[in-house]
C-alpha cells in the first residue's frame, strides 16, 4: 500500500494529488501568515527599539536579549521555570502511573475513581489558581489545620531558596514558594497522565504478561520488565505535553501567586504579559516571547524528529 502511494507521488500530478493540494492550500496559507508570519514579526520586534506605545522599528541588535539575560527578574523566572518543570513532570508521571496501575487492578467502582481523578482537568487553570491561592494561603488555608501540629509553612509567600548559591544576579536553587504552584498544577494535571497511562495499560495484550509469568517473572518483574518498557511511548508523550505546558505556564501562576515576593514564583509568561501590556515595552515583551519559543522548541523538536524517524521505519 505504502509503496503504491510513493510511486504515485513520484509520478505526481495525479488528480487526487492536485485535489489534496487544493484542499490543503487555504489552511497552509493561513498557518503561514498567522503562525509563522507573526512569529517572524515578533522576532523582528524583539530586535527593535519599540519600548513605548510609540512604534520605533529601528534595529537594536541583540540589545534587548542582553538586557533580559542580565535582568534579575528574568533570571529568577528561568530558574523558577526550570524547577517547576522538573518537579511538575516527575510528580505527574509517578502519580499518574501509580494511580493508573491501581485502577487497572480491576477493582470495583473503577469508573468512579477514574472520574474523580479526571475531574480537576475539566477546570481552567484560573479556577485552580484561585482555589489553591486560598488553600495554601499562610493565614487562611491548610495552615488552620496544620497549626494544631505546630507547623505553619509559608507556602507561596516563602522567599527562601533551598541549596542556593550566587549565580548571575540571582540566588540559584530551589525556590520553596514554587512548590505550592507545583502542588496546584499536579492536582490539576495528574488526571491527564492517569488517563494516558490507563489507555496504555489497556493496550498491552494480556498474553505478554502471561508469557512473562510463565517464564517465572514475579508480578513486580512483570511491571518492571514488560509493562513499563511498553509504556515508554506514553511517557514520552506525557513528558512532551506536560513539558510544553509548564514552559509556557501563565494563567495558573498569574491567578494564584503573581510574580511573588522577590520574584520567587515569577515565570517568563507573566513577565512577558507585564512587560508588554503594563510597561508597553513591546520589544522586551517580544524578546521574552522568543526565548519561550526557543525553550519549547528545544523540547518539542527532538520529539518530532524521533517520531518522524519512527514513522519511516
Amino acid at each position, binding site marked *: 500500500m505504502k509503496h503504491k502511494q510513493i510511486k504515485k507521488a513520484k509520478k505526481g500530478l495525479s488528480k487526487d494529488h492536485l485535489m489534496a493540494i487544493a484542499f490543503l492550500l487555504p489552511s497552509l496559507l493561513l498557518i503561514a501568515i498567522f503562525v509563522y508570519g507573526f512569529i517572524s514579526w515578533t522576532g523582528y520586534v524583539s530586535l527593535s527599539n519599540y519600548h513605548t506605545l510609540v512604534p520605533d522599528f529601528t534595529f537594536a541588535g541583540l540589545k534587548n536579549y542582553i538586557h533580559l539575560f542580565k535582568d534579575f527578574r528574568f533570571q529568577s523566572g528561568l530558574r523558577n521555570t526550570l524547577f517547576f518543570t522538573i518537579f511538575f513532570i516527575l510528580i505527574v508521571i509517578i502519580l499518574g502511573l501509580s494511580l493508573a496501575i491501581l485502577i487497572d487492578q480491576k477493582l470495583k467502582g473503577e469508573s468512579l475513581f477514574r472520574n474523580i481523578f479526571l475531574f480537576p482537568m475539566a477546570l481552567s487553570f484560573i479556577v485552580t489558581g484561585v482555589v489553591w491561592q486560598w488553600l495554601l494561603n499562610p493565614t487562611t488555608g491548610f495552615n488552620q489545620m496544620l497549626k494544631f501540629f505546630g507547623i505553619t509553612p509559608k507556602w507561596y*509567600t516563602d522567599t527562601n531558596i533551598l541549596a542556593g548559591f550566587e549565580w548571575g544576579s540571582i540566588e540559584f536553587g530551589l525556590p520553596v514558594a514554587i512548590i505550592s504552584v507545583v502542588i496546584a498544577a499536579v492536582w490539576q494535571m495528574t488526571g491527564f497522565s492517569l488517563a494516558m497511562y490507563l489507555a496504555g495499560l489497556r493496550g498491552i495484550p494480556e498474553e505478554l504478561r502471561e508469557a512473562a509469568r510463565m517464564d517465572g517473572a514475579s508480578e513486580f518483574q512483570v511491571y518492571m520488565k514488560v509493562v513499563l518498557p511498553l509504556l515508554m511511548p506514553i511517557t514520552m508523550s506525557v513528558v512532551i505535553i506536560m513539558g510544553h505546558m509548564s514552559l509556557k505556564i501563565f494563567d495558573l501562576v498569574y491567578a494564584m501567586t503573581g510574580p511573588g515576593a522577590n520574584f520567587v514564583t515569577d515565570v517568563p509568561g507573566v513577565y512577558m504579559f507585564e512587560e508588554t501590556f503594563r510597561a508597553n515595552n513591546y520589544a522586551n515583551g517580544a524578546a521574552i516571547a522568543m526565548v519561550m519559543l526557543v525553550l519549547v522548541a528545544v523540547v518539542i523538536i527532538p520529539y518530532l524528529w524521533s517520531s518522524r524517524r519512527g514513522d519511516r521505519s
Partner: protein
Amino acid sequence: MTIVTVSLLLVISACGSSDNENQSANNNGNNEGESKSGEVEIFSWWTGAGEEEGLLALIDLFEEEHPDITVENAAVAGGAGTNAKAVLATRMEGNDPPSTFQVHGGEELNKSWVAADKMEPLNDLYEENDWMDKFPDELIELVSDDGNIYSVPVNVHRGNPVFYNIEIFEEHDLEVPTTFDEFFEVAETLDDAGITPLALGDKESWPATQIFENVLLGVLGPDDYQALFAGEIDFSDERVVEAAEIFGEMLEYVNEDHASRNWQDSAQLVADGEAAMLNMGDWAKGYFTNDLDLETNEDFGYFNFPETDGVFQVITDTFGLPKGVDNREDVETFLTFLGSTEAQDVFNPLKGGIPARVDADEDKYDEYGQDAMEAFKESRLTPSLAHGSAASEGFLTEANQATNVFVTQRDVDNFIESLENAAADEQ
C-alpha cells in the same frame, strides 16, 4: 447651579444636534455608519461595587438628558485596570479606539497615548465650558502636554492618607503620628503590644510602591518630589537614599503574610483589629464603609502620611477623545457632561472619591469626602507614582519590580541602582 449646568448642556447639545442631523443624513445610505452615530462607547475598568453603581448612574443621567445618544458601557474587570489596559492597547493599536476611555491623569496619558499621537486636544472644549478655573491649575497641568489639554478629570482620589483602627489607638493611648519619628514610636509601642503596626498587601507590588512614594514625598517635599520625576534630581540623591532607608524601616513593621494579600485583604486586617494602620488611597474608605460596614471616625480614622501635611497625592481618573472616532460631536457632548458638576456629583458619592471640580456640592459627600474636598482646594497637588501619574508606565513597571525585590532583600544600594537604571531607560 445645577439649573445653569443643565441649560448649558441643553444649549450645547442643541448646537450639536444640527451637525448630528447632517451626519445622520449623510449616513442614511450607509447602514453601518447609521448605527454608529448616536452611540458613545465608554471604556473603563469600573466594575467594582461602588464604582460600577456610579458609572451606571452616570450613564442613566446622560441618556435621560440626551435621548438621541445611547451609551455603551465597555468596562473590563480587573483592579487598577491591569486587564483593561491590555484590551485598550490592542484596540488603539488596531485603530479601533473606544469613543472615550478611562486613563489616569499624568504620564499614563501623556507619555503613552499623547506621545503616540492618538489623542485630540480638548482646549476648545475647556474654553467653551469655562472649565479653566473650575479645575485646579495643577490638575489641568497633569492632563496637559505642551500647552494642550487632553482629557477631562472626573474624580480625584488621594494617595497619602493613613487609615487607622481607632479602638487600637485609644486602647494604647496613642496619638496620630505626624513625623517619621513619631510614626516609629507608635509602631514600636504597637509591636510590643503584639499588634501589627502597618498593614500591607503587596501580592501586586503597587501598595508597597505607594508607601515608598509617600516617604519620598515626605522627605523631599512637593517641589523636589516633582523635580525628581522630571529628571532634575537624581535617584542617587542622598535624600532618596534616606527615603529608601525609612521605607525599609517601615517594612519591619508590616504583617508577615503581606505577599499573599491584595489591598482589600490588608484593609481587612485593620478592620479586624489585627493591624493598626494602613497607607492606602482613599478608595479604602469606600471599602471600609460600604463593604465592611464601618463608621468613619468611629471605627476607623485617617491622618496624612507622616510629613506630607498640606500635600495631596493625586490620583485622577480622566476621559479623553481618541483620534479617529467617527462620532466626535457625540463624544464631545458626553465629555462635556462628564466635566459638569452635576455628573461629578452623581458619580463620586457612589464611587467614594471626590469631584475634580472645585465648585461641586459639598453636601452630597460624607465626612471624609468633605475633608478631602477641603484639602484638595488648599493643598499642593502632586502626581502619584504608583498609579501612573508621576512617570511613564515603563518606569512604573520597573519601579514596582525594584520595590518587589527591595521588600524582601532590603538592599538600599541595589534598590537605588535599579531606580537609576529605570530612570536612565526613560531617556
